[in-house]
Each structure stands twice: as C-alpha cells, then as structure tokens.
C-alpha cells in the first residue's frame, strides 16, 4: 500500500508537498489526522497482528484508495508517512538462514515503479545528517526505504540481508569496531592484455603474473588478521585468485565463532573484476562485479580504459549494526552515477572501497562528499599499484577512514605507509579501532604492523 500511495507522486511533487507540510498549521494537521483515523487504525491492527500489509486489501481500504486517487495530494502525502509508521518492522526472516538475498518487499514494484526495502538504521546517531533535511518520504520513514526505479537507472539493486549482530563490540555508552585494512605487498603484477579500439585503448586485466606468490602473501596476512578477530577485514582490489578465496573460506569455516566480515581481494578473470564478501563462518554474502572501468593516462598521454565484462547489478548488504553497506570497487566510487545511486537513492550508511590505483586524491575528494551525510567510510589502496603508475610510485596515504562525527579533526583519518618497502617481505596491514561513545566517534589506535 505504501508503494501504491507513493506512486501517486512524482519526485517533484514529493518535494513540493514536503515543503508545504513544513509550514502546516495546527488546524490542518488535526483535520488530516481525524480524516484518516479509521483507515490508519485498520493498518495498525493488521500490522501488529503480523499480517503483511500488502495482502490485506479490504473493501474498505479499496474504496478509500479509490477515493484517494481523486483526493487532495497534500493530505495523501501525510497519509503515506502515517501508513509507513504503522507498518511493523520487517520480520519475515524465519526459515531463511542468516544471510540471504532480499527482493523488494512489495509485490507491486514493477507496476508502481517503487521498490520498498527494509531500512535498518546504523547504531550511531545521525541527527545532524544532511539527509534529515531532505524533502523526501525517506526522511520521515522509520522502518522502510522506498526507491524509485528511475533513480537507480542504469543500475539494478540487489539487496542482501544479514540477520544477526556481532561485528560491533558493546562497551559502556557505545561500541567499538576493529578493522584491518591490508595493503599486503608491493610486488603484485597484473597480467594485462591491450586491445585497440577506434578511440583509445582498452586494457583487460586477466589475473596476476606472480599469482602464486601473491596468493601465499594474501593467505599469510589473512591468517594473522583473522586470528586477531577483527570485525571487518578489507583487502585491496585485484590481488585475488580463486585459490586465495577458497583458502580464506576454509580458514573462516574452521572458526565460525569469529564474527568477521571479509572483503576478499577482487578476482580479475574472464573479463570481469569480482568482489566477494564473506560473512562469519565463510558464508558468501554477495559477489559484486565491478561496473565502472578504471581509466588511466599513460606517460605518452594515451588513455587506457579497463576492459570489463559487467552486468550493472549493484549488490548491497543490509546489516543491523552498520546500516546499509555498499562495496564499490575502486573506480566505481568515482563514477557519479554509481555514487548518486548508493548515497542518494538507496541511502547507504557505510561505504567500504577497495582500490588498486596509482593516485588517491579523487578518492579522498569523493569520500569528503560523504561527510555531510554522516557516512562511515573505509578506503584502502595497495602499494602494488605502482606497476600502473607513471612515476613508479604509489601516492600516500594508502587508506582513509572517515567516521560520521562532527569533529573536523577526525573527519577523514589517513593511513600512511611507514614500512619503507619492507612490507613486501613480511606481513603488513593497518589496524584500526573505531570507538563510538556518548554520540562521539574516536579513532583510537591506528598503526601498521610488519613482521
């Protein structure tokens, strides 16, 4: 029903009536409340009795809906918000396992062009977020999020749901989150193949030249990080192989008691660049194919474009602790369409980006845009990106951590390489602890470890 009512509004109308309601008088508010009292009572009753709201179409509701079609849109705008408030939070998780795919909750998504998904707020307070000032239904909705089909084009959304908790560690007055960002080594070499096009060139990445060595390094550093029970482990882009993925999964299956999410190093093979996100116990949460190619300018000024086989699906993970999480792969974060989709259309709360890039400024600037929306953002690059760099160097810092807090000092924390190239010979990663206490964020410890 929520989707049906929303579909009566265009985006412009949504904004227009939101502004009108911002200055509504008491009499008007009272009149609308009184008009829809019975209608809303019926929905509350049905919702609290665990009946799905879209399955309970009584004649009364039908008749009211028909009447609404000709009614005052200003009042209907308010009604949409009231109806959403009275529908119980998404709870049809039984008999589905712990991590599973989620289709839009409304069956009329195709008909109305509105997809409704559960919305679970992250465990931090975003009172000051710019999103709270947006003139949209989503600003007022509590349990659900509506997405207009036109807003996600040319992409499609694939939602995944993690029905558990445990990544955050509770502490007095808040929580803490331990994260490991792994640049791994600086000598991974991409296996590439150039193809001429009418305009520019494409470079297909088809795995690694020193695959065996890199895989060993990945597994070695993973063993070390996993044993320390981090909440999130993030590997950079393009350093993965199926062998490394199987090794990581095997290790995680041995210890399902560790509540760790792993963004495995992306695997470049068969023309695609795939990120696999693993949940506790090595359960595969999602496989996301990179949708936006990297573009590099070579020394002689030639533009090289990454040759990608992509399917335009954007995979997102709904969690109870970090809210909605997006996993852009490197250049995807810089793609304006992709960024608009994840930040404005589907309202992600956390962004985790793995990269293989000779430069980081564009990423830093893009992450800065998320500060107003109070996002939690993690970015990690790899020293091995020097192989695609014009000057044979990788720009520092290698990583960024942005916490959703008002204190300017902590808005984007940079992670610098300090091992002077020693990391290629040993184990190296960044250990980060984010502490949220009394509505304030602190990035308490931040150091690299070489062994």
């Amino acid at each position, binding site marked *: 029903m929520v989707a049906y009512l929303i579909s009566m509004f265009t985006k412009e109308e949504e904004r227009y009536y939101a502004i009108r309601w911002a200055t*509504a008088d008491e009499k008007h*508010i009272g009149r609308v409340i009184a008009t829809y009292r019975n209608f809303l009572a019926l929905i509350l009753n049905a919702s609290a009795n665990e009946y799905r709201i879209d399955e309970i179409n009584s004649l*009364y509701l039908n008749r009211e809906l028909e009447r609404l079609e000709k009614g005052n849109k200003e009042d209907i705008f308010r009604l949409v918000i009231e109806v959403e*408030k009275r529908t119980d939070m998404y709870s049809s998780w039984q008999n589905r396992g712990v991590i599973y795919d989620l289709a839009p909750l409304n069956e009329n998504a195709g008909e109305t062009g509105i997809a409704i998904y559960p919305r679970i707020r992250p465990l931090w307070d975003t009172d000051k977020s710019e999103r709270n000032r947006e003139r949209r239904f989503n600003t007022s909705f509590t349990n659900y999020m509506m997405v207009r089909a036109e807003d996600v084009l040319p992409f499609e959304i694939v939602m995944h749901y993690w029905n558990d908790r445990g990544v955050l560690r509770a502490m007095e007055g808040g929580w803490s989150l331990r994260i490991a960002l792994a640049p791994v080594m600086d000598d991974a070499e991409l296996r590439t193949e150039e193809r001429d096009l009418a305009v520019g060139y494409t470079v297909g990445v088809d795995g690694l030249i020193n695959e065996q060595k890199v895989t060993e390094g990945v597994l070695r550093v993973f063993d070390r990080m996993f044993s320390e029970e981090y909440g999130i482990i993030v590997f950079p882009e393009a350093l993965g192989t199926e062998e490394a993925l199987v090794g990581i999964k095997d290790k995680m299956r041995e210890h399902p008691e560790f509540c760790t999410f792993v963004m495995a190093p992306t695997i470049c093979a068969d023309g695609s660049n795939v990120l696999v996100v693993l949940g506790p116990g090595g359960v595969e949460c999602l496989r996301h194919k990179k949708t936006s190619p990297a573009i590099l300018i070579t020394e002689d000024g030639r533009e090289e474009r990454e040759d990608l086989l992509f399917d335009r699906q954007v995979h997102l993970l709904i969690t109870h602790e970090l809210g909605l999480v997006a996993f852009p792969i490197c250049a995807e974060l810089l793609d304006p369409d992709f960024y608009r989709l994840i930040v404005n259309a589907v309202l992600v709360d956390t962004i985790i980006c793995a990269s293989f890039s000779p430069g980081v400024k564009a990423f830093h600037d893009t992450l800065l845009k998320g500060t107003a929306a109070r996002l939690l953002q993690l970015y990690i690059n790899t020293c091995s990106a020097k192989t695609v760099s014009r000057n044979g160097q990788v720009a520092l810092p290698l990583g960024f951590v942005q916490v959703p807090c008002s204190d300017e000092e902590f808005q984007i924390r940079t992670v610098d390489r300090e091992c002077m190239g020693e990391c290629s010979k040993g184990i190296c990663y960044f250990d980060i602890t984010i502490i949220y206490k009394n509505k304030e964020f602190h990035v308490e410890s931040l150091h690299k470890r070489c062994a």
Partner: protein
Amino acid sequence: MYKEKYVINFFKADQDEMQRKTRGFSKIMVELIAEAAFGELEKLQQECKQMRYSAQGYLEDSKVSPEEKNTLVNIGYINALLDVEQMYLQKLTIQNEMQQIKTRYKNAILAALVKAGTMLHKDLACAIGVSASGLTAVIKQMNATSVPTIRVEEVSKYKLYSITPAAYQYITHYMPGMLPEMETGNREQEVYFDYVMAVRSIKQNRKMGIAEKEREIRSDYVMALNRGGKKFMNGQAKFGSVIEFSQKLA
C-alpha cells in the same frame, strides 16, 4: 483450524506455500508458548503432527546420500530451534521493556493514543492531565527502552505522537481492555470497516465485480449479528469475524 493454515504436504506444496506455512507455524507456536496456552498448544500439536510423516516420507524418497541427508536434517533442525529461540526472545524483550516503563502516565498515554491514533503534543498533554512542558519528560521516559513505544515526529513546529506497532501488539495481547470499543454510531455508512478483510488486489476486485459479493456478505454479517445477539466488542473478535467472512471472497 490450525491444520488448514499450517500443515504442509512436502510432496505437494510449492516453495512459497512451504515458506509461508513454516513461518506462520513458528510464529503461532512461539506465541502460544509465550502465553503458556496449554490447551491451544495441544491442539496445534495434534493437528500439525501429520507433517512429520510427510517430512519423513519426503526424505526417504530423496536421492541425496544418507550422510548428506542426515546433515541437512540437522541443519534444518538447528536452524528451526534458533529461529524459534530468536522469536521467543524478541517477544519477551517487548514484554520486558514495556514492563520496565516506570512513569505512572504509561497506561493513560497508551490508552489515549490507541484511541486517537495520532495526537498533537498539547492534545495528548490535555488527555492525560499533565502540562505541555511536563509531557516531554514523560515521553522521554516512555521511550527510554530498547523497544520504542511512542513514535515522535515533528511536523512544521508541532510534535505528533503515535503508538508503535510493537506497543500496539503488546496492548492487544496483555491489555485488551484498553482497546477502544466499536463506535457504531458514526460508522453506519462504513460498515465495511467492521468485517471485510479480503485478500484480493485492488485490480482483481474491480474485475470480479466485487460489489455483488459485498452485498451478500453484508447480509450474512447482519444475520450473524442477529443470531449472536450482540455486537463484536474488541479488535480480536472483530478480526476473527473478518477472516471468517473474507474466506467467502476467496
């Protein structure tokens, strides 16, 4: 009654039906356990135990190796236990949290909001007999639990309060007396509201000429009321009658 709603024949049921019935079965079971409704639980057990035979037969017929079958059965068993445990905890959490609310205005606020749906700040203050400034602290106390009971929203410069579905669910189960009685006087023209709860989509209803069926049901309903000699007085009874009559629409 339980038999029709929850029993699955694993040889015949499709995936959707199986999912829906399993979910419904676990929910009702948890509900009955939480309320210690021995009689109803026994009835549920009697009516639904045939599923065990269907399940066993299906497993016997399955081509999966015995070891794998055994593992799958254990996975299902453990998942079911954990699902039920999670639901039970969720249910108890709502109960506990509601009982933890200390303010003496708790019942008055809930009753006022159940009756009115949404209320403006000053109207609610007036309804429970506190000053407008005093109400802010009371609402804070009401929501100082992990399960929010009162939804607070700011529209323009006014604050609106309404009850959350979790709180409403608690009231329907544990304080049914708080639910408003049917206001029959001003509902003569909206008699649908009392009993009609169909399961058809809007477009299907239009196509099927539902108006005719509606008339039939209305006369049935009036007859039922006359036979019973009294009107349905609360939401639960009303909902029961709704289901009964809505089945005629299917």
